[in-house]
């Protein structure tokens, strides 16, 4: 008999790495999935909320994303990146799909504003404190970009706009938008050298 969600996952599962947990999830282990969810739910929901700008929509995106991860766990390929990167990639794709169904005005507003009604995760554990610190340092990297470069990558990544739409929105030549995107990514990539990895 499977345990219900009223009981926490076994401690042994919590000691496993994400990649090992995904192997269990691929075989239908709901408790292993629960551990994966607990580790990445805050980051996933935060990203969904940053893109959607509406809590209800962010919840829907996060739920759809984690169900897709549960049902498609066998497709996770550890050689292509961490579980966290994969989870956030799934969330990003679904959130952008959702926001692309919204009006241009709503999307632009969402990409312009940081979350207005933030209920930040309480810093209950060392891991959560570290995540919060990481978010601050990563935000500092983004904020350090020249304004016009930051603008195009935020419209693209958080606003779900294509490069051509961004060129029209900003009344800027497409070639300029492309070069700003490249410069911004190159600067951020260089900033996280030498490892190039975000845990």
């Amino acid at each position, binding site marked *: 008999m*499977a345990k219900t969600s009223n009981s926490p996952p076994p401690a042994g599962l919590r000691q496993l790495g994400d990649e090992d947990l995904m192997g269990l999830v691929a075989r239908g282990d709901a408790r292993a999935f629960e551990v994966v969810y607990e580790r990445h739910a805050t980051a996933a929901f935060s990203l969904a909320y940053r893109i959607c700008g509406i809590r209800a929509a962010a919840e829907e995106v996060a739920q759809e994303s984690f169900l897709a991860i549960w049902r498609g766990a066998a497709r996770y390929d550890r050689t292509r990146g961490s579980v966290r990167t994969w989870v956030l990639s799934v969330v990003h794709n679904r959130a952008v799909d959702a926001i692309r169904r919204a009006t241009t005005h709503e999307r632009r507003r969402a990409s312009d504003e940081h979350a207005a009604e933030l209920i930040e995760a309480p810093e209950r554990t060392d891991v959560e404190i570290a995540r919060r610190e990481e978010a601050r340092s990563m935000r500092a990297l983004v904020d350090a970009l020249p304004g016009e470069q930051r603008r195009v990558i935020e419209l693209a990544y958080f606003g779900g706009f294509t490069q051509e739409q961004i060129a029209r929105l900003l009344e800027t030549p497409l070639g300029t938008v492309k070069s700003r995107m490249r410069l911004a990514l190159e600067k951020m990539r260089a900033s996280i050298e030498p490892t190039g990895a975000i845990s």
Partner: protein
Amino acid sequence: MPEHGEYSDALPAYALGALSDDEVTRLKHHLDECPECRAGLEWLRAGVEVLPASVPQIEAPPELKRRLMAVVEAEAELLRAGGASADRPEAARRRWWSSPSAARLAVGAAALCVAAIAVVLAVSAGGTGTRTVSAQTTLAGARASLQVRGTRAELVVTGLPALAADHVEEIWVKRGSAPAAPAGTFVLGSGSVAVARPVRPGDLVLVTVEPRDGTAAPTTAPVIVARI
């Protein structure tokens, strides 16, 4: 056909998800053949990863986990109830396609992966001692729930599609790791039918499509599932 340089110029937008669908298709073809662009893309992607990591951290609402785990646990139970066949959905699907009730069962094996109707557990009816337990169903347009009072349960369905000739819906009660036990058959589009076995919290109530006289064990994937 675009030059290599044009594809290379498109890599930042691709990494950010800012290309149109057509552009993505063309670039993917090029990436299959160009190791230089693949390496360039991987390098840029590490830069993109700064963006989700920079987002202010907001706690996910607890009800999100409850909703999600209700669906996940029900599907995990379905996988276990389906046994070996659940691990081989392609083979199972072929077998079901060949049966007379194929139209209803087309979603059967795939149901293990198909979006389920939201599970809302234990919505109290209040005062009568009867509670309503919503069920998942893989049948498009159908809805199902259980009315539970003590150890007795009644299945309420609406919008079930017509069955093929000589077939019935069969109810099962599955407790823990024990095999699913038969709990009555019915042919019904909308209405209610008693579950002919006592139930208790934690039991799974399943419905499968079976030959007219019912069977001793499920032979198809469940089309309705609810946890008491």
